[in-house]
């Protein structure tokens, strides 16, 4: 349970905690059961076009592994010794029937593990529609953009096959607008955290954002509005913390206790790449013209940089992290990466070099979604925070 003030905020966070810890996805099940014919589409990190799922009248449901509360019994039997934990716990969710109400699953091209998991899902759950989402690594409009538009169209047809209804351009445009509104609110919340991290603790904001992976987007937008109103209505004590960016946890999620441990060790997390999909497009996606082309353009030209994406320009490699430090007035970067996460861990030396070249202090550690021992994390992050206070800008 988080230490939150006895206010409206407490009630909101309690609700978010309940959603977060519910590994049977009762809310999504209830949503589906409320109206005959409703469909739920699961998706894995880091990005899928949720707008099209919404336009199909279906609920996009984020499947982010099993966290630290799920005992993996069956999942380990499907994997070798050396691999991250999210595929094991996702298999566990599937085999144990926790997501048996999901009508379709989307697996984006984030890494070879999630890619192969799409094929495993086809073999293990033949009654669940399964689709891999190929994302372009060429960022020219008439090359990668055209390819991605055709991919989006295939997703549209795939979803239409599940719901039994064709998905119109107008419906997608309307859904883009709904998600634009959600992203505006998400950005507002992140901006408020940058400005007042003592009032918007990362562990709290994480729960609010995580709720967006199980709630209908309209409901989530209202939740963010309520949360913003409640935190603006209060003033928590300002601590002498260091301001840090946490980078590398864009797929397998850290346990909530890890986020809290970083904060307790004397750091304000002022930016992160957890749950990146909720602010993937950095500004509004156009609602004019062909909506699939608009989504494609947004992916190509207005989305976040992150290790699974190729950076065509060597001069720009890793600068997004330097920019994040500047924009959020951070004093250092904590690389928190899941063990055996190829995209994150292969990228790390390059990112560290860039930060070093720009004089940004940094530390790195690994975690698994079920990491339980937080004392070393607290010590490492605490020492990092102290060193920033003592030595940075001296």
């Amino acid at each position: 349970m988080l230490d939150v003030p006895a206010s409206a905020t407490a009630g909101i966070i309690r609700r978010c905690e309940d959603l977060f810890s519910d590994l049977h996805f009762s809310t999504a099940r209830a949503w589906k059961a409320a109206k005959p014919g409703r469909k739920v589409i699961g998706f894995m990190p880091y990005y899928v076009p949720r707008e099209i799922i919404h336009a199909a009248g279906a609920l996009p449901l984020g499947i982010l592994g099993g966290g630290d509360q799920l005992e993996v019994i069956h999942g380990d039997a499907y994997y070798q010794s050396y691999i991250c934990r999210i595929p094991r716990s996702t298999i566990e969710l599937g085999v144990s029937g926790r997501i048996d109400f999901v009508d379709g699953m989307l697996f984006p091209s984030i890494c070879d593990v999630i890619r192969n998991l799409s094929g495993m899902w086809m073999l293990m759950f033949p009654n669940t529609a399964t689709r891999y989402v190929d994302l372009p690594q060429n960022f020219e409009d008439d090359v990668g953009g055209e390819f991605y538009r055709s991919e989006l169209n295939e997703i549209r047809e795939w979803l239409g096959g599940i719901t039994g209804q064709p998905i119109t351009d107008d419906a997608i445009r309307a859904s883009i607008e709904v998600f634009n509104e959600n992203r505006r609110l998400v950005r507002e919340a992140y901006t408020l955290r940058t400005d007042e991290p003592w009032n918007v603790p990362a562990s709290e904001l994480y729960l609010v954002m995580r709720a967006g992976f199980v709630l209908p987007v309209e409901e989530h937008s209202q939740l963010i509005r309520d949360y913003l109103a409640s935190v603006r209505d209060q003033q928590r004590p300002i601590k002498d913390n260091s301001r840090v960016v946490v980078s590398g946890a864009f797929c397998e999620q850290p346990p909530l206790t890890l986020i809290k441990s970083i904060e307790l060790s004397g750091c304000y997390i002022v930016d992160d790449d957890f749950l990146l999909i909720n602010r993937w497009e950095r500004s509004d996606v156009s609602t004019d013209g062909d909506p699939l082309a608009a989504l494609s353009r947004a992916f190509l030209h207005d989305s976040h940089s992150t290790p699974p994406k190729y950076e065509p320009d060597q001069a720009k490699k890793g600068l997004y992290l330097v920019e994040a430090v500047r924009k959020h007035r951070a004093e250092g970067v904590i690389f928190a990466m899941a063990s055996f996460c190829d995209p994150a861990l292969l990228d790390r030396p390059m990112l560290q070099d860039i930060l070093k070249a720009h004089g940004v202090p940094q530390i790195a550690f690994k975690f698994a979604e079920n990491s339980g021992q937080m004392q070393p994390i607290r010590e490492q992050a605490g020492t990092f925070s102290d060193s920033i206070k003592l030595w940075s800008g001296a």
Partner: protein
Amino acid sequence: MTIITRPASKPADIIKDASMSKQKDMMARHYERLSDAPANGEKVAATFVPGNLNELLMCFGFANNLPEVNAIQSGLRKQSGGYVMEAEKSGHSEDVCTYVKSDIGMMSKGNIGPNGRKLPDPDVLLLSYTGCFTFMKWFELLRQQYNCETIMFHTPYMADGKITKDMIKYMVKQLKQDVIPKLEKVSGVKFDIDLLRAHLRKSAIAEEDLVWVLQSAKTKPSPIDAYFGGIYYIGPIFGAFRGTDDAIDYYRFLRQEVEERIAEGKGPVTPDGDMGQERYRLVVEGPPNYTHFRQFWKMFYDEGAVVVASSYTKVGGTYDFGFRHDPVNPLESLAEYCLNVYTNRNLPMRVDMLENYIDEYQADGLLINSIKSCNSFSAGQLLMMREVEKRTGKPAAFIETDLVDPRYFSPANVKNRLESYFQMIEQKRAGLRGAA
């Protein structure tokens, strides 16, 4: 007319058949060419085995340097362990691919190739992004080191088990609008599509003989080992020789050699000479370990186990399903080739393939070598194993090693597993005999 030449080098204490010695000569010549490239004014391209566009690179006169092959060579020469640790000391995670770390460690130690001479810096990195995520990061790391032109060539994943028109269109557009113009710029050579057609024509001839050789393992006893021996056989066509007369020459020579072995009723040649009685016929999934390659192989042939089909020998192209490079549709053919490499196929396709191999090659079972480094291969293999067992009724086994990190090869454990597996096959046979 192709003239078949005999290899110059003599077999050493390790017994090799003539084709293996010939292959070794070809590789040695290739490394000399690479080392001499700067002095000879030749430009060098680095690229990957899966999605290797050797015919295209040859159109621009590039010498083709393959970092994976360099890592393999380092592994075989017992140097990769030191290189991997060198890379880890400089901040690379112990969790990631050891090919990458071997390559990076080798660079930090002067980039000395297997010929004992420095390998040249590449003039261009052709990032053929096919079937392996790590490739992308690997070349971003090399780009940082060499600061040279880097060309991304993205191959979509065959997730639904089919190649669509949109996939081909995407890839051909990349070739036309990005890959070829950049290769022209770096090389200073104008692209000649007829030259590409000529190279592709040669590729198809060699591919025909390669497939014949690999499928010769359907014979009993198998005249080849399609995993350990197969690695020698795929070397030229997966590397810098596809599309050349040398490759045509080599595969014709190899085919004749295998034909002779079949006529004489011989099994494969092993490092200790002709293999004895064939007792077990296996299909193997996954790459081998290279740091203990000979020791690993010996665990098989000492027991009379021969690998009759392997997925690893399809990682640079799945020619046995009929694909041949097509000079009539050159760019489309390059795209189709990349799409078809083994690790770019979805898991259901991979399971079907292994199941068919067990049937077609009359194998006793499936062995999976799960590689710590390689999630592209390894993630999902235990499910594949279950599926193949279920469908074929043949026993399967699972071992874990690594490509080029000696710390992850435990000889006693591997041997123990293999011996248990062979016993399992015997029990299965006894059970079948009892039921008959």
